[in-house]
């Protein structure tokens, strides 16, 4: 039981922070299918920084892991700028642009990983090795039965995510910026009439979604495989989209959705171990969270309400 909780939290929180990025972007009225590509590109940047620093001047591992988190956010945000350029400046179709960003990210990171490994580090590999991320167990609290598992063997990044997520929730729901951002998603003309720049707000929202996806992406890379490789692209970005749609574009509900997905996944793994299934069946069990997604969306899609101006290209002249 404890293992299920520990495992699922390590999966839930990165998924949650990616979904928060999506909520910012879609909350401002821009469809974001590019989360998958953004998280991969963020993880790539984080991995690259780790690889570059370890082979040049060996820094202390512990600072380097935090630098990698930060650079993943920067990397994600930089790549998100490309998306922003396409959909805000050139007003391209947001669905297609998002998918293109995803495909571009997959092939671009694969190519760059190979080339950089050869040219910089003189090795032929399609991954960047990462360190094992430090885990901590909170004294005393972790002794509480069941609940204590949430504080046992916790990756430090999980705490970071909780702090960042709280800050993002505050930003979105309590500050003037958040209020305007949500207004942009409902009726951008109201924001323009109030004398604010819709495009700038949406630009920032897209950057935030890139930074959050990058953070989530590198955390996945640490917790799942301790390296960056193209295997990071297994659809967690899409799962994050499902999470916030299921969460009705609200941060609190989305956390709930992410928890459900996280637990579904851990329970799936747990079942494979318990039943000692042949590996061919393990793949089937791993479809669990996705099947669950489909079922949940069937039930909840009706009552959910997307931001009213979602996907609408903002045109000043139109009234």
């Amino acid at each position, binding site marked *: 039981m404890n293992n299920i909780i520990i495992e699922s939290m390590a999966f839930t929180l990165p998924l949650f922070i990616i979904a928060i990025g999506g909520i910012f972007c879609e909350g401002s009225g821009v469809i974001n299918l590019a989360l998958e590509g953004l998280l991969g590109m963020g993880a790539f940047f984080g991995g690259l920084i780790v690889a570059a620093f370890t082979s040049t001047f060996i820094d202390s591992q512990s600072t380097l892991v935090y630098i990698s988190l930060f650079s993943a956010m920067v990397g994600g945000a930089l790549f998100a700028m490309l998306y922003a350029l396409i959909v805000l400046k050139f007003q391209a179709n947001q669905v297609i642009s998002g998918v293109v960003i995803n495909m571009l990210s997959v092939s671009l990171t694969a190519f760059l990983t190979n080339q950089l490994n050869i040219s910089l580090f003189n090795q032929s590999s399609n991954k960047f090795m990462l360190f094992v991320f430090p885990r901590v167990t909170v004294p005393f609290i972790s002794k509480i039965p069941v609940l204590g598992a949430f504080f046992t063997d916790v990756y430090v990044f999980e705490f970071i995510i909780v702090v960042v997520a709280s800050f993002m929730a505050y930003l979105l729901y309590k*500050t003037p910026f958040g*209020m305007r951002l949500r*207004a942009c998603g409902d*009726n951008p*003309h109201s924001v323009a009439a109030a004398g604010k720049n819709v495009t700038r707000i949406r630009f920032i929202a897209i950057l935030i979604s890139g930074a959050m996806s990058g953070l989530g992406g590198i955390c996945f890379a640490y917790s799942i495989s301790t390296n960056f490789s193209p295997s990071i692209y297994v659809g967690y970005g899409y799962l994050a989209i499902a999470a916030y749609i299921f969460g009705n574009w609200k941060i609190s509900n989305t956390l709930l959705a992410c928890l459900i997905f996280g637990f579904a996944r851990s329970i799936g793994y747990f079942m494979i171990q318990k039943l000692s299934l042949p590996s061919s069946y393990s793949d089937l069990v791993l479809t669990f969270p996705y099947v669950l997604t489909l079922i949940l969306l069937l039930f909840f899609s009706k009552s959910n309400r997307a931001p009213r101006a979602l996907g609408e290209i903002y045109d000043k002249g139109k009234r």
Partner: protein
Amino acid sequence: MNNNFVELKNISKVFPNIVANDDVSIEVKQGEIYAILGENGAGKSTLMSILFGLYEPTSGSIYIKGEKVKITSPLDANKLHIGMVHQHFKLVDNQSVAENIILGIEPIKKKFGIFPKVDIENANKDVALLSKKYHLDVNPTDLIQDVAVSTRQRVEILKMLYRNAELLIFDEPTAVLTPQEIESLLDIIKSLRDSGKTIIIITHKLDEIKKIADRCAILRKGKLIDVLDVAKSTTKEMASLMVGHDISLQIKKDDKPFGETVLDVEKINTFNKDGVQTLKDVSFSVKKGQILAVAGVSGNGQVEIADAIAGLLKTSSGSILLNGKNINNLSIRERLEEGISYIPEDRHNVGLLLDFTLSENLCLKQYYKEPYCSKHGVLNFKKFDEISNILIDNYDIRCGEEKAKTIVRSMSGGNQQKAIIAREIHSNSDLIIFVQPTRGLDVGAIEIIHKRIAELRNAGKAILLISLELDEIMSLADTILVIYGGEVQTIKDAKDLTKERVGEYMMGVHKSC
């Protein structure tokens, strides 16, 4: 020192292909209600958008309180204390009334001394105070999506007042309101003036100008025609200046007796999706050559009558006979083929496919039949255009240079309505249902449509007219049916009823059947 709040001097605005404003100069005095009157497309909205900073004038200059200013964005306008209520409200549906009002200039308080936070408690208080001060009744914590149109408009007004606007611009403020709401809005506007605000109101409704405005500028095709002192002018004068020729709202009807019964509605009942009864035992009949007008306050079941006849709404009991045949169980298309034409209230969502061409829209009722469609299911667009060009000429539909290929969205409201009417009349049905046929149209277009309706009547069609405009009903109807709360209050010969009497029935004061 004069007391002009705004002076627009020699303003011109040229869009590609069109001159929207041509050398317009107006002066608005501090503390007056200044109306700008013109047909659709006369350049009223453009002129005000220039004053509000949404457009930049091609030439000309703006003076506020005697000082030359440059207004390049709504932000500049706000700083100069100019506010505007747009025809289409700019509100965020899923935020509260107060949040909408403070958007962009939110009051801030620091949480723990460092984290800035929108001070919504204070905003709620301020909005409540403001709404009390100006008698604009709103609840600051209501979500916009839950409040009525008239409340939304009050929110827009409060938005301006919260920004300390001194000059308030209203763009067609009454277009979306019911008669009662219009009355109360006009009172609000008057009391705003009395508290010292300067007001510009864009409209094409003459009686409203007569009621509240001090002066009235008339625009026609982008040019300033005249500025009138409202108290010294008649609506007739204003109307003819606005349209450019004399207007006669007199309807010519012949005195032929009615023919045989076309539509016979007997005791129909309908329910809405919440299970509330919307029509209770409604019965009436319409004969050839008769205009039966349904009068009532909006939302009392008029639209349900039309929808039930056209088949958009299922009746739970009762029967509808068309030329003696029960059409209760027929599909919508079958009913139309039986001889019903329907001009719906919502021409944008129900009447037209806005992003389709005019010819496609004109053929919407026949496209599936030969010769528009071959036996093998291939559409014949040449035929579409052929018939469309005839209709465009016959009904004087003014469209762009592409003629039948014009995208309907780009046409003016009046011409869109003419297109619908052309399509519906062309199918030569016995019964024609008009729902709010002149809503949002200017006097010129209304004149044309009223004449058309009278012609149809004289040609022996049965006409069911549903309208919220009492004047329209009084001038067109042969017989008037008044509905209140889903029940028929009275059905009488129009000659036996006065406007006031109909108004009383509309309030449910009397009942006589």
